[in-house]
């Protein structure tokens, strides 16, 4: 039995019955990373020493009969834009290649509190800006299903680590689909929770009003476990929602017969790959067989979501990334001591092309004379899109769509054409614009053997039910 192939809930049983130790579990993961980690390139920092100490601590605690957290001894990897105290946090960027935060992100603090074993920091598109993981200062992550293909972005390192059994659980972040797209391309589960459910404290901001820490796991039960650990109100994040913490792992067998599922027709139009469409429709049929009622709905605002998303995320990014100026931490050019030139050279050299593109465009849309035409208009359309969803959710409980129009494309295929690349997010950005939860689930494979993703979106804070529906779907697919 290869321990690293198991799910977290399976390992939890083995660990609790003391059939295996945390160190053994960690060893299996580390062995796997050592043999193939370089070729997949999913890690920026491997925290071997720290992980071993954490695993040893869990084993000792267990043998002395002390109370252990819900994730005791389970290996977790963390996307490299989420701070783990005293470890590099590069955000996949040259400008932060030497940055070590003296604090834990709240999500990481919670993981540590549950005795999880943090194994490393995963590779990603620079500051989360990308759909293919090619925008990393540390080189692209490869898709374990086909090393010539992208794992999806920007949480590509987290998704690929799971798909190649280099981790058991993974944290990612999702600003426009950055958890769900790689989950879909790598055949794993990816959840973007409701905005404000998981604290953003310690998640390095890309676009503050859209960013959310998300869960990548091998199945839905694991996803519930991980979400239960990291969700909850945090007074250090003013946008965090003040609700009582929940255990999402409790029951899976509820009667879900009255649940109505909407199929928005705008998500099945032009640009959608034929095989993806067929598989997702088959998935919907499977849910119907489980007794769910499905109906077609219309979301006319859908085709605007990409434009609105990119205007807003670039605007916020241009401001969020202003702090990387070389003056206090991170990379600084050694070429000059002139202040303005120092800023220019540091940022020119420190940032990659896509990040610079977004900073420039974001600065533009916030500028005098353009603010109304772009930023304010985008905010207005964002409200319209929200109303679209509100209307749909009056009729149905969940919406089912493909996660992405295609399966994993080849590395290099779209990198020269940003607009085509941006369209990879066409089905995912709406959930960020509206703040609703959305999950990507594996839904068969195409003729190349590449995973296909199905997305379920729910009302704000409907995670509990969303996970149950997802579980039902997953069980059905297994049969």
């Amino acid at each position, binding site marked *: 039995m290869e321990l690293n192939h198991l799910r977290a809930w399976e390992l939890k049983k083995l660990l609790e019955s003391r059939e295996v130790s945390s160190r053994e579990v960690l060893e299996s993961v580390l062995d796997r990373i050592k043999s193939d980690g370089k070729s997949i390139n999913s890690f920026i920092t491997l925290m071997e020493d720290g992980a071993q100490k954490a695993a040893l601590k869990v084993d000792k605690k267990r043998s002395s009969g002390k109370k252990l957290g819900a994730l005791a001894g389970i290996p977790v990897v963390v996307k490299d*834009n*989420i*701070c783990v105290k005293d470890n590099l*946090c590069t*955000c996949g960027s040259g400008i*932060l290649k030497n*940055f070590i*935060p*003296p*604090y834990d*992100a709240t999500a990481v603090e919670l993981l540590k509190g549950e005795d999880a074993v943090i194994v490393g920091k995963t590779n990603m598109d620079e500051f989360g800006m990308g759909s293919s993981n090619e925008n990393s200062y540390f080189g692209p992550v490869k898709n374990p299903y086909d090393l010539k293909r992208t794992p999806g972005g920007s949480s590509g390192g987290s998704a690929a680590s799971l798909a190649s059994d280099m981790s058991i659980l993974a944290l990612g972040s999702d600003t426009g689909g950055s958890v769900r797209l790689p989950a879909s391309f790598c055949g794993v589960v990816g959840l973007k929770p409701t905005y404000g459910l998981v604290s*953003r*404290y*310690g*998640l*390095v*901001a890309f*676009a*503050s*009003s859209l960013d959310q820490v998300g869960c990548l796991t091998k199945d839905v039960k694991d996803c519930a476990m991980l979400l239960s650990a990291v969700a909850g109100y945090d*007074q*250090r*994040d*003013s*946008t965090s929602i003040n609700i009582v913490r929940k255990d999402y792992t409790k029951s899976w067998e509820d009667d879900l017969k009255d649940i109505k599922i909407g199929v928005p027709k705008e998500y099945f139009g032009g640009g959608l790959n034929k095989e993806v469409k067929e598989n997702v429709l088959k998935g919907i049929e499977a849910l119907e067989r489980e007794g769910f009622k499905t109906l077609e709905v219309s979301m006319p605002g859908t085709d605007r979501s990409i434009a609105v998303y990119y205007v807003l995320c670039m*605007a*916020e990014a*241009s*401001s969020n*990334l*202003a*702090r990387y*100026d070389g*003056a*206090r*931490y991170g990379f600084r050019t050694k070429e000059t001591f002139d*202040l303005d030139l120092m*800023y220019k050279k540091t940022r020119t050299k420190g940032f990659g092309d896509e990040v610079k593109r977004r900073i420039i465009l974001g*600065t533009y849309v*916030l*500028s*005098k004379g353009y*603010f109304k035409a772009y*930023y304010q208009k985008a905010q207005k359309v964002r409200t319209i899109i929200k109303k679209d969803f509100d209307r749909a959710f009056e009729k149905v409980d969940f919406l089912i769509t493909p996660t992405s129009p295609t399966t994993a494309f080849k590395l290099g295929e779209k990198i020269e054409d940003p607009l085509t690349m941006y369209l990879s997010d066409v089905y995912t950005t709406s959930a960020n614009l509206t703040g609703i939860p959305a999950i990507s689930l594996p839904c068969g494979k195409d003729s190349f053997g590449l995973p296909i993703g199905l997305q379920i979106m729910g009302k704000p804070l409907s995670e509990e039910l969303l996970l149950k529906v997802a579980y039902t779907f997953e069980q059905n697919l297994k049969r």
Partner: protein
Amino acid sequence: MIYEAIIGLEVHAQLLTDSKIFCGCSTKYGSPPNAQTCPVCLGMPGVLPVLNKKTVEYAVKMVLAVGGRINEESFFARKNYFYPDLPKGYQISQYEKPLAYGGFVEIDLSHGKPKVKRNKRIKIERIHLEEDAGKSIHIENKDSKTLVDMNRCGVPLMEIVSQPDLSSPEEAYLYLGKLKQLLEYLEICGCNMEQGNLRCDANVSVRPEGEKNLGIKTEVKNMNSFKGVEKALNYEIERQIDILKSGGRIKHETLLWDEEKEKVSFMRTKEVSPDYRYFPEPDLVKLVVKRDWIEKIKRTLPELPDHKKERFLKKYKIPEYDASVLTSSKNLADFYEEGLKFYSAPKILSNWIMGEVLRELREKRCEIGDLRIKPEDLAGLLMLVDDGIISGKIAKDVFKEMVDTGRKAKEIVKEKGLVQVTDKGQIEKVVEEVLKKNKENVNEYLSGKEKLFGFFIGEVMKKTKGKADPKLVNQILKEKLKR
């Protein structure tokens, strides 16, 4: 042609909260550089601001004091610009919907002449909250460099923007004084311009009297004292008038006041002024200030200066000028009222405070709390005068000693033997001696040179080392010189 000036002031007041506006760091002044910082105020990656409720409470106090309207919902915004002492690359401020609009303060233009009572209302445009930036320290030598101190970074600021209602540097000075008075009464700002906890920028334009349209304005920055504001505005108004008179045009630009050279220098034109790209701060939720909270804060407001002055006029029947001076600062007014608990002649106490006490404060350049004399001690001194134990003149010397040593009047009088001589026989003896010694003067006096009366008094006082009761001396001298 006669020109009139139009001035609007933007005043930044550092709020006296214990911690910063978006993190828990201390706001104490004068700590070692960067000792009062944390990842949040240093703007490190991934951290988030959390609003300090106390700063809102303080700003609401000011809005209530000037009668402004508090927006139940207001928003924070980012003001984007690059500077090393601005660690996030943006300042969190309020832009489109600030904490409050409206309100006014009244300035008194009667110049201490109560008969020409002339008040003017200066309207407030808006009041909002924002964070301060750090401090850049430029070291200029052969390898010149700039160091940054982030202790001030994130210290809460309240910006008070006036409408362009001020028409002279003097009015600006009085308006600032009035704001300072309110801030001090509310105990929400240290109000020391030199220390930078009260700062002021001015928008200035001039136009021919009678003209309706506004002239082109300039912005004057870097005025670091009350007097500096008055001087800078005088300078700038004259500069603008000179330009217009010689047929020139005012440029829309930002100027810096140089306190030493007493002139303004060019900083930048408005055409190249930075575009701050304001947009709503996504890391903070809207600021909600509910009615019942406002009511609660209202109940904590102290008596404000204008009310206090009215009350002093009615209750203590002192002249308007006295009431204005005594209520000019809360500490002075408190000192006065505390003194009256021990001493029951309001006008006499007022005279002493306006005379001796304020003179000491001016000479020592300090606050009333710094003097070693307590209100009850001053009252004790005045009672010694009333009881005829010391003369008013000696009392002034005793007062000085009390201020310097913190000792009580009675002790000093006793130790130095300053008790007034009220024994008629004793004084008569001295008077006789003086008259005997100055026969010529006596003759001159008797032949009509009445001015010499003062000379005799002086001689008697000299002989008694000032201790003789002046009233008695007067009376006895008159009697003796009649003969």
